């Protein structure tokens, strides 16, 4: 109890501290230069000190000084990332018994920026500054503006000034140099000409010690009277603002305060707008998040780089966040409507803090819940079995996402089956997201830009699946120059090239992957038992983006993949995805947009059974889904409302099965009737944030309909999407959501995992649409200076008409498939706790999920009803699930990643009895999924070596050396039983990665 009270008090203190102006500054990325010294004034340790900030004196604040940037850093606690204080608001501070002063704010306008230690020898006052400069000049590695890697080696330069007769002098090489006031008046004086300062340059200098009392110092010349008293806000601001040019506000450096509007308006809120550009290229930047200090008011810049916020009058902070750019925080004083253009700097490669910071607090800005966003950088740092960055494996590290096995296709979200996930790649539907049965995902990380997984609060523009939406988008090509990357792994290689077709107007990106597993299998000796097998895959991505102007962009994307595998040459399996899409993006105003897209998807699989000696029975069995789609979504911002509306339509053509005999085969050509259907939907939603207050609401309705033909059957139903958020504090939000979904296409399978030979089935008169709803609620708390996100979500889901199968069902080439299927209802619920650390050397997340996923047959079929009509475990029901994903950065270049995964074993159906039938021993099985395989545990480690920082170099090599399953635990992939030809019962456990799997992955960027 006492410990609990202590924890609560600490947390309360943290929340309170988060509201203090002192800690609202920019979080400093923690560059660690421990191998090359440090950039702090004296020591990297933070010590309690006193600081006068923005007119208020704070005591016992952990302080330190960045001697390189001449900035003061504060920490709310010793475990958090430091926050950079605004120099223009900080006239003085005291640290370790020494007073420091900002001479600029003391009236010495042409003094060097930064802080000076105040020392005295009893008579003379000295102003002592320690500067840490780069040992080498920063390289101009990234274009003409010279923003690139800064060499972490420092040299130290000490500047000591002293004050005499209203002038400031420095001593260099035995000469006094009068440096202030007025550099033009600088004059060199011989030491002898100032006998009273002779001791400064003598060999035996007098003891110089810190000044002990502010009053004493204040009495000294050079500082205004009352300097060390708490100052009024107006006086310090006034002095500060006087130094700022007001002609044209272009904020190119964060440590200034800008005044917006020249005449004080009578009442707010007023519009603050501007354009965000890249500092190097001058290009406008779209997609930049712009928020105020509270982060409740926010918008994203359009493709023309424009933003617009409605903000109250007075002090505020504008925060600009974009993944690839350094964070920009600008202090503003808003008097009236005005314009503030901003430039942002490129984030230096390998520094992820900027990205992380952009993600911070995101949960408090969204009304919806259950959205998980992963960018390609995170994906590539999560260890995988063969070292290749894998979107699906990364998704599986998120709470609420599970799979039935570590090398299985598909994933399960919050108790939903794998086919209840809508997987979109550039808007096209991917029906089989895996290569080689799940060892690799179907997505090439070279071209993937961002991955969004909606676990609940699915936006109205998405539909067609009842569990989740995984939206993967590919990146645009580089508009400036040709770039590329090449990756070599143990089993795969990948190559990507991007660049301009027409500079700054039309870009392309082209990526491909292939495997040499085929070749490896051929190298196996004949007596290995595996010789003669084939397993290969390839995929190709292509994208062309044309920018007509700042408002209009057209993007063409294409994706092709194929898998091909056989064993001992008797049977060959193939499957392939083809997707092509075109998307037109139109932006107008500040936050208005229209996206129109259309495309074609094709998924086909083929089984060739041409066993030697059985040419008379050789045949090909193939299935195919084709779909054409079109979507149009508009978003219009009206005051506090953001209206989303539009429609989409999907035209399905599904060939459930075609048997084609080989020449000479006795097989009769046979084709099941093609199933066709049209699934049009319209939707409208409103995101409403009343007066930028703590409440926001998201309400939407989507009417989805489904018309199958030629046997006409119509289904239609509205789907609700409701969400609400209450943010009593900037860093604390409470959310709730409710949504209903319909699904008209079903995966027909009797296996636990998606199999290449599974087929899909459209709803018809016999197969009703799947329906489901989810109610969810959550609490989100960001603490420790935006460094740690804590979230707790709970959900309850129901689904209806999910298809299970009867015992002995024939699912392939079945004219009467519905007769072999049964409808089930699903029920799942759970809670997900997640802690995500976003800044510092150590980043990552830990999550724990407790959940259940159960199914029950909806009809009573007497003795044949599955498990007697009672609830039974879904194949992916794993009640306990603990995941830990992290990255610890030693330096810019070196980091280690780790991934820990524990979960309850999945349910299985195992034999409980045996009997003789004829001459053979047979097995009697338990009720469906009544038992579980052993619990799953795995730890992976990887050492990441990022490319060198000389970005001007033509190539950059990165490498990952890792080990999958470090503990070598023999996790059960599956459990099966056999009677060994009807003689004796034996259980077996397959462990795919039964020992440590080391890997090396090399990536070359050029």
């Amino acid at each position, binding site marked *: 109890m006492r410990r609990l009270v202590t924890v609560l008090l600490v947390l309360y203190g943290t929340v309170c501290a988060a509201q203090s102006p002192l800690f609202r500054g920019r979080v400093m990325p923690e560059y660690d230069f421990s191998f090359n010294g440090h950039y702090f004034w004296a020591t990297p340790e933070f010590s309690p000190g006193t600081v006068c900030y923005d007119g208020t004196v704070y005591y016992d604040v952990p302080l330190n000084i960045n001697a390189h940037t001449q900035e003061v850093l504060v920490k709310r606690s010793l475990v958090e990332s430091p926050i950079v204080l605004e120099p223009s608001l900080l006239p003085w501070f005291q640290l370790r018994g020494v007073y420091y002063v900002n001479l600029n704010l003391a009236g010495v306008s042409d003094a060097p920026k930064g802080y000076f230690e105040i020392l005295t020898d009893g008579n003379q006052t000295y102003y002592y500054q320690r500067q840490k400069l780069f040992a080498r000049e920063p390289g101009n590695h990234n274009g003409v503006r010279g923003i690139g890697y800064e060499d972490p080696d420092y040299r130290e330069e000490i500047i000591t000034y002293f004050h005499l007769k209203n002038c400031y002098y420095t001593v260099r090489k035995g000469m006094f140099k009068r440096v202030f006031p007025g550099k033009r008046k600088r004059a060199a004086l011989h030491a002898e000409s100032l006998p009273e300062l002779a001791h400064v340059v003598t060999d035996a200098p007098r003891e110089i010690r810190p000044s002990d009392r502010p009053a004493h110092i204040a009495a000294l010349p050079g500082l205004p009277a009352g300097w060390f008293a708490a100052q009024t806000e107006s006086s310090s601001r006034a002095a500060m603002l006087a130094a700022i040019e007001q002609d044209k506000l272009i904020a190119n450096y964060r440590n200034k305060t800008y005044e917006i509007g020249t005449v004080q308006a009578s009442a707010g809120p007023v519009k603050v707008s501007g354009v965000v550009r890249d500092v190097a290229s001058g290009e406008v930047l779209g997609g930049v998040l712009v928020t105020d200090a509270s982060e409740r008011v926010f918008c994203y810049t359009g493709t023309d780089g424009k933003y617009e916020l409605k903000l109250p009058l007075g002090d505020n902070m504008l925060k600009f966040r974009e993944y690839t750019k350094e964070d920009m925080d600008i202090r503003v004083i808003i008097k009236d409507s005005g314009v503030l253009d901003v430039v942002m700097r490129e984030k230096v490669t390998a520094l992820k803090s900027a990205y992380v910071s952009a993600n911070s607090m995101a949960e408090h800005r969204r009304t919806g819940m259950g959205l998980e966003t992963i960018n390609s950088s995170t994906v590539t740092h999560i260890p995988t079995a063969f070292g290749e960055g894998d979107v699906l494996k990364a998704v599986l590290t998120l709470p609420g996402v599970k799979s039935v096995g570590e090398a*299985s296709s598909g994933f399960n979200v919050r108790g939903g089956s794998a086919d209840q996930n809508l997987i979109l790649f550039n808007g096209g539907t991917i029906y089989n997201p895996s290569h080689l049965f799940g060892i690799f995902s179907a997505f090439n990380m070279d071209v993937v830009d961002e991955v969004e997984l909606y676990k609940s609060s699915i936006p109205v523009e998405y539909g067609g699946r009842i569990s989740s939406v995984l939206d993967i988008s590919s990146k645009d090509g580089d508009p400036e120059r040709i770039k590329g990357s090449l990756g070599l792994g143990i089993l795969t290689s990948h190559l990507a090239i991007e660049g301009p077709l027409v500079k700054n107007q039309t870009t392309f990106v082209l990526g491909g992957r292939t495997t040499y597993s085929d070749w490896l299998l051929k190298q196996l000796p004949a007596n290995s038992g595996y010789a003669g097998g084939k397993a290969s895959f390839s995929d190709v991505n292509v994208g062309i983006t044309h920018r007509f102007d700042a408002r209009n962009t057209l993007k063409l994307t294409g994706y092709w993949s194929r898998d091909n595998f056989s064993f001992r040459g008797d049977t060959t399996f193939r499957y392939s995805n083809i997707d092509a899409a075109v998307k037109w993006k139109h932006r107008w105003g500040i936050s208005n947009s229209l996206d129109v897209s259309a495309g074609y998807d094709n998924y086909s699989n083929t089984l060739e059974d041409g066993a030697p000696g059985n040419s008379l*029975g050789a045949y090909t069995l193939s299935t195919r889904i084709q779909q054409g789609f079109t979507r149009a979504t508009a978003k219009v911002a009206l005051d506090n409302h953001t209206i989303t509306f539009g429609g989409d339509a999907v035209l399905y053509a599904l060939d459930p099965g075609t048997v084609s005999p080989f020449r000479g085969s006795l097989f009769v050509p046979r084709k099941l009737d093609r199933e066709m259907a049209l699934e049009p939907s319209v939707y409208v939603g409103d995101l409403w944030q009343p007066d930028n207050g703590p409440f926001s609401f998201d309400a939407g309705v989507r009417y989805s309909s489904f018309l199958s033909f030629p046997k006409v059957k119509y289904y239609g139903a509205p789907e609700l999407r409701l969400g609400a958020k209450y943010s009593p504090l900037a860093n604390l939000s409470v959310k709730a959501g409710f949504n209903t979904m319909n699904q008209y296409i079903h995966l027909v399978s009797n296996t636990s995992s998606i199999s290449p030979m599974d087929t899909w089935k459209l709803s018809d008169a016999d197969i009703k649409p799947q329906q489901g709803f989810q109610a969810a609620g959550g609490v989100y708390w960001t603490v420790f200076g935006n460094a740690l996100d804590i979230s707790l979500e709970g959900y309850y889901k129901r689904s209806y008409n999910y298809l299970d199968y009867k015992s002995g069902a024939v699912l392939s080439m079945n004219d009467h498939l519905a007769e072999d299927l049964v409808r089930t209802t699903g029920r799942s619920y759970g809670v997900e706790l997640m802690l995500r650390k976003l800044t510092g050397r150590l980043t990552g997340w830990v999550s724990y999920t407790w959940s259940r996923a159960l199914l029950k047959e909806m009809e009573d079929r007497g003795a044949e009803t599955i498990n007697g009509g009672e609830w039974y475990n879904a194949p992916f029901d794993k009640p306990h699930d603990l995941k830990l994903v992290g990255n610890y950065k030693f330096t810019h270049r070196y980091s280690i990643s780790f991934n820990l995964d524990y979960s309850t074993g999945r349910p299985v159906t195992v034999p409980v009895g045996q009997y003789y039938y004829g001459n053979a021993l047979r097995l009697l099985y338990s009720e469906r999924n009544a038992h579980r395989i052993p619990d799953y545990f795995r730890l992976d480690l990887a050492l990441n070596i990022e490319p060198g920082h000389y970005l001007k170099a033509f190539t950059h090599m990165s490498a990952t050396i890792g080990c999958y399953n470090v503990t070598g635990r023999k996790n059960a992939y599956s459990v099966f039983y056999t009677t060994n030809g009807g003689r004796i019962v034996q259980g077996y456990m397959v462990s795919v990665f039964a020992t440590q799997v080391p890997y090396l992955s090399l990536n070359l960027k050029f």
Partner: protein
Amino acid sequence: MKKTILYILLALAASACIYPYDADLDTEVPERLVVAGDILIGEQTQIDLGYVMPLGTNPYTERRTPPEASVVVENDLGQAFRGTKVRDGRYIVDTENAPENARYRLMVRLEDNREYITPWSGVNQEPEIRDITYQVNDSQMQLFCSLNGRDSLWNFSWEYDEVWEYHAYFIPDLLYDYQNGEYVVQRKFSDYYFCWNSRSSVEPCLATADGLSENSVVNNNFLNINRSDDRLNYYYSIQLKVRGLSSDARKYMEHMMSLSNGTGDLFTPTPSEMRGNITCVGNPEEQVVGFVSVCKRSFQRIFIHTENIYKCPEYPDGLLFYPQPDEDGNYNLDNLFNYSSPVFYELPEPNATNVRWGPKRCVDCRAWGGTKTRPEWWPNNDV
């Protein structure tokens, strides 16, 4: 499909392994009656009754069967054929002369008066066995069969009986008389040279002509025998016993076999019990294991001279040895007798130093598990 995926996964992930697994289940088994066998018209019908046993029990020694039962095959002509118990759980019903043009059903009554019946069913006409052929490759002899279906039965099930004649490696010139401690010269040692052995299939073979242009199964590779297998030592024979099945029966048998053959993997159907065609009269909800068809079977046997196909797995001459004296220079031939037999003598007077001995299997075919009983229908007479 499942095996293909599994093998490739194992091959790709060099670390993959399959381990024996014991789920250590503590589950009570429902008492479930098993009725195995088909009503065979034109021959004797064998019906086996038993119960499902817990997984941990020894199926050979702890087999459970109903103590007493009445097994009757009856037809819609009013005839009843009563079964005779030949051992625990096994009943033989003489249906050899049962008419083909009737509908039949099986009735089983247990000691506690629970009664089980199958639905009335006509006789599945026997398929035609078009031929049984074989091919020999480097490592195996492959056996194929071609079948023609009858009527509307496009599904086939067959068992086979194998009989083979084989010989030992050597015809010995001498035997060692253990009683008298001396070698005995024999001139008719072929009594130990040729033997016969037999085996019946454990699992029925299933095939279907569903989806084919004709009701036939052509060149179905149903058995592969390694060329070093004893069965191919000299002379081999196999007899197919084929019956036609309804779709339901074939589906049931396929399902039952798949449940005992590695089902439960990620890429195979989740195991689930399927209901057969046997119903408890008093309690239709009671689940009974088994599917009883009414069939007529066809038979065909072939013989193959396999002497040239056989690849001896060992070098017989290398197995022979001369007895070695002990430290005192004595030859303890009596000790060798139980394990070995003399083969040759190289001098007119056999003694311990000039007679090579060999393992019994080299000279006594019975050591391979066969018998000297030649089937009366066996065409070859090498005795």
